[in-house]
């Protein structure tokens, strides 16, 4: 072999080693992210000590620990931030907030970060079907045997339970999927709260005659189009209590169950009767809230998590906003469809699991809730036993709690069935803007749900 050969061979070897070294160092950081959080500032050994001492003497402030928290950027943070400050003072655990997009993109971010081992220590995410789709036992700490579990509301626990084990605590209050309405318009026109769908449509007709938009729709943000369908679930449940179970087991379909199909029909009816605002396909969620607060529109079918947004942007208008449940066809079955609070989940692969458990315990304690409410007004009842809401809550929240006190509530379908087809927002826009018929929309949704069921590997599909 000549010198040239040897040199070229050497160069090749060096380059190869370079690549391999590059790859291997990459994989080692990857595996690091699996077990440790990259955001953590304290060295690993020190943390181990911290955890031990913390275990022994839990009341004295321990060595500082930093944990990360992943939450969507549309959530109201002031309550959570207040609790975070209290936790830092009490336990010396500081929390870094890591924002992720909300809405349509949120699933993507959470699923990708879980799959790549890049999840934060604490994950704020929906409960119910979206949470079930994450394969919780793989990623999150089992909280079933924590001492505070008895205080958590049973109906909430169901939405974060997989195979009998509980994986989350409530991140906030329960909210309503209902019709927000402008009370001033109702007063001026002398309208009363409708108890049936027909009464509601009559109200809309009168509002329309008065020259005000009866129903606000914001289908530019397609998720908002689902509300009329989803908020109708109380009525489905009242007539067919086994629907959720049958639907999950592939025995009932939206398109063939008349009461379930009603939701799609109602969604289309507000459009065909001309109750919607002009340009509803170009209207966004924020636009619609503005129109509701300023009295340009009378109703907005929405989740009550919109209330803090209204309170922040139009503080003098929040007392004009009331809320009522989407009525069914008969006055006898009248009640509210409820969205359970989202959950807080503890990353199983975090190196601060003990600190996280303390964090969670404080978060759901009476003290923690008081700190939370001192900074942020509740949007509905907490899913924790024995917590009373103060008297100065917004009128729409009072309306919400009235349904709870009367016991006329049912959780939304997505909290009792793991099935929620991902294309529902688009399908609802199609039905709600008259592109397809309710029946065709329901059939398209059934097909969409089938894909979801197969991906989840549910029995019976």
């Amino acid at each position, binding site marked *: 072999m000549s010198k040239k050969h040897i040199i070229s061979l050497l160069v090749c070897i060096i380059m190869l080693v370079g690549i391999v070294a590059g790859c291997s160092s990459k994989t080692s950081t990857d595996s690091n992210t699996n077990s440790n959080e990259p955001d953590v500032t304290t060295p690993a050994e020190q943390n181990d000590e911290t955890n031990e001492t913390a275990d022994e003497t839990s009341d004295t402030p321990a060595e500082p620990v930093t944990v990360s928290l992943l939450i969507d950027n549309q959530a109201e943070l002031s309550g959570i931030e207040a609790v975070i400050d209290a936790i830092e003072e009490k336990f010396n655990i500081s929390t870094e907030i890591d924002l992720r997009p909300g809405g349509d993109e949120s699933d*993507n971010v959470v699923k990708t970060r879980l799959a790549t081992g890049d999840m934060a220590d604490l994950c704020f995410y929906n409960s119910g079907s979206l949470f079930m789709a994450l394969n919780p036992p793989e990623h999150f700490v089992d909280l079933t045997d924590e001492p505070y579990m008895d205080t958590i509301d049973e109906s909430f626990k169901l939405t974060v339970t997989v195979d009998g084990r509980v994986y989350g605590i409530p991140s906030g209050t329960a909210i309503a999927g209902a019709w927000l309405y402008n009370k001033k318009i109702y007063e001026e026109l002398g309208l009363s709260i409708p108890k049936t769908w027909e009464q509601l449509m009559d109200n809309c007709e009168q509002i329309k005659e008065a020259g005000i938009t009866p129903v606000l729709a914001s289908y530019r943000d397609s998720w908002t189009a689902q509300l009329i369908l989803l908020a109708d679930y109380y009525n489905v449940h009242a007539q067919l209590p086994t629907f959720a179970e049958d639907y999950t087991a592939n025995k009932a379909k939206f398109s063939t169950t008349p009461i379930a199909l009603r939701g799609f029909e109602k969604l289309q009816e507000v459009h065909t009767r001309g109750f919607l605002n002009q340009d509803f396909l170009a209207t966004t969620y924020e636009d619609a809230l503005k129109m509701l607060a300023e009295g340009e529109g009378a109703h907005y079918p929405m989740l009550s998590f919109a209330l803090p947004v209204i309170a922040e942007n139009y503080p003098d208008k929040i007392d004009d906003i009331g809320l009522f449940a989407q009525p069914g066809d008969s006055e006898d079955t009248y009640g509210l469809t409820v969205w359970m609070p989202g959950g807080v989940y503890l990353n199983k692969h975090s190196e601060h699991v003990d600190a996280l458990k303390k964090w969670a315990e404080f978060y759901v304690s009476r003290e923690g809730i008081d700190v939370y409410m001192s900074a942020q007004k509740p949007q509905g009842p907490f899913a924790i036993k024995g917590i009373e809401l103060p008297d100065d809550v917004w009128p729409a929240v009072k309306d919400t709690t009235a349904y709870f006190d009367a016991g006329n509530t049912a959780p939304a379908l997505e909290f009792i069935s793991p099935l929620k087809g991902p294309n529902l927002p*688009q399908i609802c826009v199609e039905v709600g803007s008259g592109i397809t018929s309710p029946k065709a929309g329901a059939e398209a949704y059934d097909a969409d749900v089938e894909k979801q069921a197969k991906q989840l590997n549910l029995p019976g599909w």
Partner: protein
Amino acid sequence: MGQMSKKNYSYTFLIPAALIYGILFLLPTILSFFFSMTWWTLTDWEFIGFENFMTFFKEPSLKIGFKNTLLYAFLTSGLKVVFGLLLGTFLSSKIKTKGFLRSMIFFPNLLSNVAVGIAFASMMHPSKGIINAGLSAIGIKGPDWLGDPRIALLSVILVDVWRGVGIATVIYIAGIMSIPRQYYEALMIDGGNKWQSFLHITVPLSRPAMNTVIILSLIGGLRSFDLVWVLTKGGPGFTTDLLASIVYKQYSAGFYGLSTAGNVMLFIAVAIIAFPLYMFLTKSEVDL
């Protein structure tokens, strides 16, 4: 040192590049063919044959997706070819503000698709947008550009052409500049006019440029995603869904096997259209 080692000698230099290409491009491609035939949760998989493809074909929005993608690709490509040629001819003629105009035409290319999308989404708002405000000033009631299912896709196509015509123009200018002056002189001596010089010299002799524009914009159009996602998210309903946006939605729903199958189909569709077209176009090129 025999014949063999002399041959192998050059290959050793290829190893680093081949490895990078293999690991980052070939391996994922092969894996995607495999995973498209599995039920896959990222941590767990099960081989299910062609079921994903069957599901994808049964997808009601897929039909719209295929139709839209083809319409989108051919229309954007066609419009870019025509406008690019006209602008290219204009901007390679002897006009004073040539440099300024050329930068103007090219400028949209420097913007990110997302920024373009957000800007146009607000300009195309049916009542508050600047486009319809301008139209109503001269007495025309503008349509709901992105909300009307009949024209939403066309609106997106127009934005894409606005943004992409600069590249086509630049390629054409390069092509036209490389046509030797003698041809034009010969035509002038024979008494030909401007129109004839355009039709019989510029158009046929800028064929290589045209072919590049066609291929680039067609492939770009077939796999287009970002602009349509920012402008309409495939909506209203599914009316502006493209193959790429359908695949993306499947992925974000957690249907990993299914979305991989969609990507494989997109790959095949692009290959089926692009390769024969490329062969055809290069065959019919005229030599200078």
